[in-house]
Each structure stands twice: as C-alpha cells, then as structure tokens.
C-alpha cells in the first residue's frame, strides 16, 4: 500500500476562503495539546492568548497598534507575491525606513513645526525604497534572485542600525545605553485615543488597505502585476514590462515597510533602538498569505497575528508561558495554512498493491520482464 498525491480536478473557491479560519481553528486545537503537554493549563493559556486581549479597551488599542505595521507591510508584499516577486527582506527595509525617518527627527532635534513629521515620513519611504532598490536593480540587471538579496540585506540593515545607536547617534545623556535621543514632540505621531498608544499610523494603515485594494482589483497597474504573476508570456504579449513590475512591486513593498518602521520609532518607541520590532517584516509574509494576498483578507489576518503577539505577552505575564510560544503559535498557523492549501489543491489517495501494478505498467520499471524476453 502506498499513498499517492494527485491534483484535484476542480479547486473549490469556497474552500479556498475557508482554509484561513480552519487553520486558525487547527492552531487552537494543536496549541491546546501542546500547552497541556508542557504542563500549563491549556484553557487558561488559550484564553490569555486569544480572548483576554479583546476584553479591554487597552487590549483592543494594542491590537490596532500592532496590527497596523503588519497590515501595511503585508499589503505591499502581497503585490509582489502576486507577481512572483519574492521580497522577504521587509524587515531590513523597515529598519532602513526607521533609520532615515529617525535621522530626520534627530537632525531637527529640539525644533518644532508641522512639517517635521511629513518630512520624516518621506525620508522613511525613501529609506525603505533605497534598500528595496538593491534587489530590484540586481534582479532586473543581472537576474540575481531577489529572495537571497533582500533577505541578506536585512542583516546588513540590522548591523547598520546597531552601529548608529551605539556610535554616532547615541544619546549623549543616555548613560551609554544603545539608543538615540527621544524624538521631540513634533517628531512623534499624534495619539488618537487618550490613555492608549494608538497613533495616527493606524489610520494610515487603513488607508493603505483601501488604496491597496483599489490598485490590485481595479487599476491597470494591478492588472499588470497579476498578469505578470499568472502568465509571464501573456504579460509580454500585452506589452507589460516584467522589469517595470519588479521595480513597482519592490518599491511599493519596501516603501510601505519603511513607513511602518518609522511609525514604530515615531510612535510607541519614540527613539531609535537596536531592535525596533519583534520581526514584523517577517511576520508580514505570513499575514500576506493568511490574507490570501487580498488587502481585506490581509487586514483580518493582521489582526489575528497581532492578537497572537499580545496574547503571548498576556500569557507570559499571567502564567509564565515562555515567550517562544508566540513563535510557536505563529509557525503552527502558517504550517496549517500551507498544509490545508495543499489539500485544497491536491488530494491524497491510497493506492492498493494491485492497483499499484496496474498504474505502473507503461510507466517504467516493474516486473514485466518475462513478457519481453521471448
């Protein structure tokens, strides 16, 4: 007996939309077992992870705060993924955006003015794009894989940020801590909701979702991106340029990642520090796929993912669940999503021995030698 994987004749659309919620459910079930094995009360752990954050205004505010960078980055990444442009270095682009935008804040340290924040935002987008331009240039000119280049550049950005906050940009009154000065009032995002940390960046993230949807579903640009991803030859036939698509999608993703990075340092953090995010740039990849590469789906997926971050904090404080549990839960989510995606497209069939011989005849190897040696 053996197992055979074969493509399904028809792929159900309903199932394709059902797999994300199903994966969340499967994650909950698996986490239940895992926590029980680790000796934690699974019900309490799961409640902390997925429910408690939703029961307070503070929790909901944190959810919005953490979801918005994920959503912003994922919308940008999804454009590229649609066109088979695999930018997995959003984390580095995020850091370069934070450095460029934060640099502007430090440059005008102590000055006040409405123009400082917009200038920082422009610089952040530019910084992210500059980092995204390197894989774009190498891919379009030399055919270098953007996967490797964008990923490796993340570590370069990380070192660069460390160098800055340990060296030239270190806060002179900071007791030698690796951090910059705190940004001044004009260089910090306005708070939307008194008593929480929810800042104007959340609105920008919602705007990005709306614009992202318009571009991908209604514009000729989005059409071009989808065509390049689905059928490169048809794209050339239609006169769409592959090079332009690579640039466009990498610039969109890296610009948004840069902006998201700025919103972290000019929002909840308020200064440059060596570690700006718990890996939003990478988590956004999961968010993009969990959201089916569709801006509205990404909005939902971003909220779920943010919940897992906040819930893990909650569980850590409440019952000492290790922080690695966040990573575990996220990884399980992606695993279940990919696995169920696979099962939506393919089915596994049990092939019985007799059938196996039948199937193998005419294919290649089996024991039909006797028949031919006559």
């Amino acid at each position, binding site marked *: 007996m053996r197992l055979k994987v074969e493509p399904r004749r028809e792929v159900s659309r309903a199932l394709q939309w059902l797999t994300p919620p199903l994966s969340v459910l499967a994650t909950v079930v698996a986490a239940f077992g895992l926590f029980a094995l680790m000796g934690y009360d699974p019900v309490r752990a799961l409640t902390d992870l997925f429910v408690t954050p939703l029961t307070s205004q503070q929790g909901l505010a944190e959810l919005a705060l953490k979801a918005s960078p994920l959503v912003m980055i994922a919308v940008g990444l999804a454009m590229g993924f649609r066109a088979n442009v695999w930018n997995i270095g959003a984390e580095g682009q995020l850091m370069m955006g934070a450095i460029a935008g934060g640099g502007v804040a430090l440059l005008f340290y102590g000055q006040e003015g409405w123009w400082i924040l917009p200038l920082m935002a422009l610089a952040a987008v530019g910084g992210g794009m500059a980092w995204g331009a390197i894989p774009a240039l190498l891919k379009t000119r030399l055919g270098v894989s953007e996967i490797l280049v964008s990923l490796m550049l993340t570590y370069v950005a990380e070192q660069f940020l460390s160098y800055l906050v340990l060296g030239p940009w270190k806060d002179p009154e900071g007791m030698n801590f690796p951090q910059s000065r705190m940004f001044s009032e004009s260089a910090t995002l306005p708070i939307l909701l008194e008593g929480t940390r929810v800042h104007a960046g959340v609105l920008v993230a919602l705007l990005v979702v709306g614009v992202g949807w318009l571009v991908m579903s209604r514009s000729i640009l989005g059409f071009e991106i989808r065509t390049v991803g689905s059928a490169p030859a048809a794209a050339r036939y239609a006169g769409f340029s592959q090079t332009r698509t690579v640039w466009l999608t990498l610039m969109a993703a890296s610009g948004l990642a840069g902006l998201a990075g700025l919103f972290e340092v000019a929002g909840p953090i308020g200064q440059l520090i060596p570690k700006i995010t718990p890996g939003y740039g990478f988590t956004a990849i999961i968010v993009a796929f969990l959201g089916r590469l569709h801006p509205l789906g990404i909005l939902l997926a971003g909220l779920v993912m943010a919940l897992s971050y906040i819930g893990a904090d909650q569980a850590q404080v409440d019952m000492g669940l290790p922080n690695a549990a966040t990573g575990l839960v996220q990884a399980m989510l992606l695993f279940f999503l990919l696995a169920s995606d696979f099962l939506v497209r393919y089915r596994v069939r049990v092939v019985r021995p007799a059938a196996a011989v039948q199937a193998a*005849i005419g*294919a*290649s190897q089996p024991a*039909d030698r006797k*028949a*031919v040696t006559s």
Partner: protein
Amino acid sequence: MRSQSGAHRTQVAEHGNTIDRLLLRGLTKRFPGVVANADVDLGVRPGEIHALLGENGAGKSTLVKMIYGILQPDEGEIRWNGAPTAVPNPHAARALGIGMVFQHFSLFEALTVGENVALGLDRPEKPKALAERIRTVSQTYGLPLDPHRHVYDLSVGERQRIEIVRCLLLGPKLLIMDEPTSVLTPQEVDKLFETLRLLAAQGCSILYISHKLAEIKALCDRATILRGGRVVGACDPRAETAASMAALMIGAEVKSVARRAGGKPGAERLLVGGLDLKADAPHGIALKGISFTVRAGEVFGIAGVAGNGQNELLLALSGERTVETPGAVLLDGRRVGHRGAAHRRALGLCAVPEERNGHAAVPEFSLVDNAVLSGHGREGLVAGGLIRTRKAADFARRIIAGFDVRTPGPNVAAASLSGGNLQKFIVGREILQNPGVLVVSQPTWGVDAGAAAAIHAALLRLAAAGSAVVVISQDLDELLAISDRVAVINVGQLSEAMPTDGVSLEKLGLLMGGMHGAEVAQSDVPAREPAHAP
C-alpha cells in the same frame, strides 16, 4: 503514385533471405478523436538506415513511441527478429536492444557527462569503469566526449553525443533517431552522418525520422513515408528526386480551393527587411535575414514545418522580442524594429500567438480580463489608471456575440472554454480592435471545421477592409485557401514569396524540406513515379 498498403506489404515480405530485424504489421494507435497511426507496416533490416519521412502530425512520433514502448498499440503486432514481441515500456525496449535519441535531450546541466550517462543506465556501473567505456565508445564512433566535463559547458551537438553514447553503451541492434539534425550545425551534421554510417556498417539498424529531404537522400537506404497516420509510400531515396518524395510527403490531392478574387494591392503596410534574431534557448531557432512585404488588403501566408522559427517570427513581429535595427520592421512606414509590443499595438499591429493558454490568454482570468489583456489600449478600457469595468465587459460581450463564442457569459474563466471557443474569442478580440496589420499564428489549430471557416472568413473580411494580414500556419490547405501570396520558413530563413495562384505544391514541399535555390530550380522537372512498386 502512392503505394497502397497491399503493395507495400508485399515489398516488406519480399526482400529475400534476411529476416527483418524489426517488422511492424498493421500497427494502429487511436487517441480520443484522432487516429494517430492506421494499419502501419514497416520493416527494418539489419544494418539498414531507414528513413521515416513525413510532415508534422503525420504520425512519426507516435509510431516510434510504440516501438520504444512509451505507447502501446491498439492493434497490430511488432516482430523483433521475426518473433512477435510486446514492448510494455522503454526498459523492455532497451533490454531488446532498441535505443532512442530524442529530439529534446533529458540531461542534467549541473552534472558531468559520466554522471548523466550513469543515470540513464538500467544497471549501475562503477564510475571509473563507466568513464573508460564512455571514452572507448566515443572514440570508436568518432563522437569525442570527455566524461568529466559538465553538461552546462557543452554545445548542443556535444549534448546530443551524450544521448547517442548512452544508447551505444547498451550495444543496440536498432537505434531510433528523432529529428537529430534540427539542432545541429552543418559540420555537426556531417560528423553525425559518419557515425551513423559506421554503426550501420557494423550491423546496427537505424530508424531515422526526418522531414529533411536532402538528408534522407544523403544518408538513408530506404524510406517509408507517412501522411495522416498511414504509410503512403516506400522508396529508395537515392533513386528518387527530392521532388517526388516531397509530393508523397505533403500529398498531391489538394482541394481546388475557392480563391478569393484578388483586389488591387494597396499601400505597403508591413515591411520586414533583413530581420535577424538570435536564438534565445538551446532549442531555439535564430531568424536570419527575414524579408517580406504585406500590402493593404492582402493576406500573406507563411508555411513551414513546426519548429522552424515560426514562434520566433511571431514574437519579432508582435514586438515581444525586439531588435536593435529600427528599420528591420516598418509599420505603415514607421520604423518599429526596436519598439515593444505595447508601442506596436498602439500603432495598429495586433497579433495572435499560437499558444492560447498563458500566451494569448491567461487561463485563470475571466473573459472580461482577457479582453482587457490586449484591448486595454486600443479600446480605451482604462481611464485615470483604473480599468473601466463596464466598458471592458461590453467589449468582451461584443467579441462573444460577433464571433459566436459559446460561453455562459463574459465572467467565466478562459480556462473553462473549449480550445476552439477560446480561439474564436482571441481572434475576435484582435480583429475587433481593427488592426492595420494582423499577425496570426496557427489561427485554426485544434478548432473544428465550422469555427475554422468562421475564422477564415473573418480574416478575409479584415483584409478586404484594408488591413494587411500575415498568417503563419503549418496547414497548407489553409494557407492556399486564404492567402494571396505564400512564403516558406525553414530553419529561420524565409523563402521568396510566391503568388498563391499557380504555386506548385511540389515547390512548397521542397522548400519545407529545406531545399533552397538551385536545388529547387533543378527539381522543377515533373515528378517521377517513385520506384517502389514491385
């Protein structure tokens, strides 16, 4: 002039004392909707180089796939050294001593020659001993090959040698070569022929598949000619003229087609002059000095056996591949050789590539989106960067209504349409854009007769309205029916254009078989009867 299978059968049986090494009797293979081989008889003697000649789709590949065990015949028998034999799979074929060199190689570029050979062996061998054997065999047969070199370093000719050596290591009794020279330079062809002659002299039979008449005359002892899946003749190619074989290959009974009344030729709309294009893949064809002119109101046909540069020519005309000389392509007098597809389309050049899925259309997109694909510019389907969905849907509906596309509606995926319906949609989409020049490749491939007639009529209407139409097709009947002039493409070169009225089929066949210039002129003598009848 055609030998019927009865006469042919007699001949197979009558050649005296030697038993045929391979004898096929009444071999038939059916695929859904088509009979690929019908009642094929074929005998190959020991030490003989036997040509299997025929156009694309004549059934050559199906036949050899049955001999090599890739396909199973529905009827008939295969006799090996006189004994009825079943060949259930290629493994069994190799065990019998049948080797095959495919047109497209199956080699791992990252591995060495020796490793590639080892992977193809049915029984594993020690690398060192194998390398030694490869050296010996390659020297014996004049196929210089270093077992330690990596495949990515090797020329196409050298790669073919690996495949041949791989077969020779098994000590084959019958070697099947599928269009082996289509990827080789003339010098490499000469070397290959020496090797094959040497093999034959040592008693190995060779079944040589080709449509190139000159090669067959130069190399083969006997030839069997297939057309439409049937054996239509057998002959000694050295005693035949290329013309008589060409006539057998493409068939003499071409229907007297209703030619349209030739209108007054209008202005030159498309002028191609000295168009050169490098091959972009190992199996690609380079275009060499392609020149032709198409006037308003004219249908220009380009004939040729598949894989002779038709795809490359379409890409070079549509602008999907560009050249550096702007003057190589003139569109209504404008130099566009260096301009891409979008630019040429805006200037009025539309194209229908051969491949429907993934080239002319995106299978998973709706028909509306597929209408946007090529129509977004000329039909004004975009405003302010956004797609005008209603206008796009209207355009899709006009195509569906105007070209009788059978579909539940414009919002279904292109993949759900049958091939013929999708082709009608694609051709309709281009024609409704009212192009000044339309380039169509294989307009009726896989399309039923009714739909084909509708597409032909639409193309003729477009020409009558003052457009220039270029039709690239392997279907001679189609080209003779709708074109005013035809030319033949062969290994990336285009012959002189000939008026369709009064063009000799024989000449077309010779051109398709790769006989140019002097040879053509010389063979314009009336065809002799092939000397195969007993």
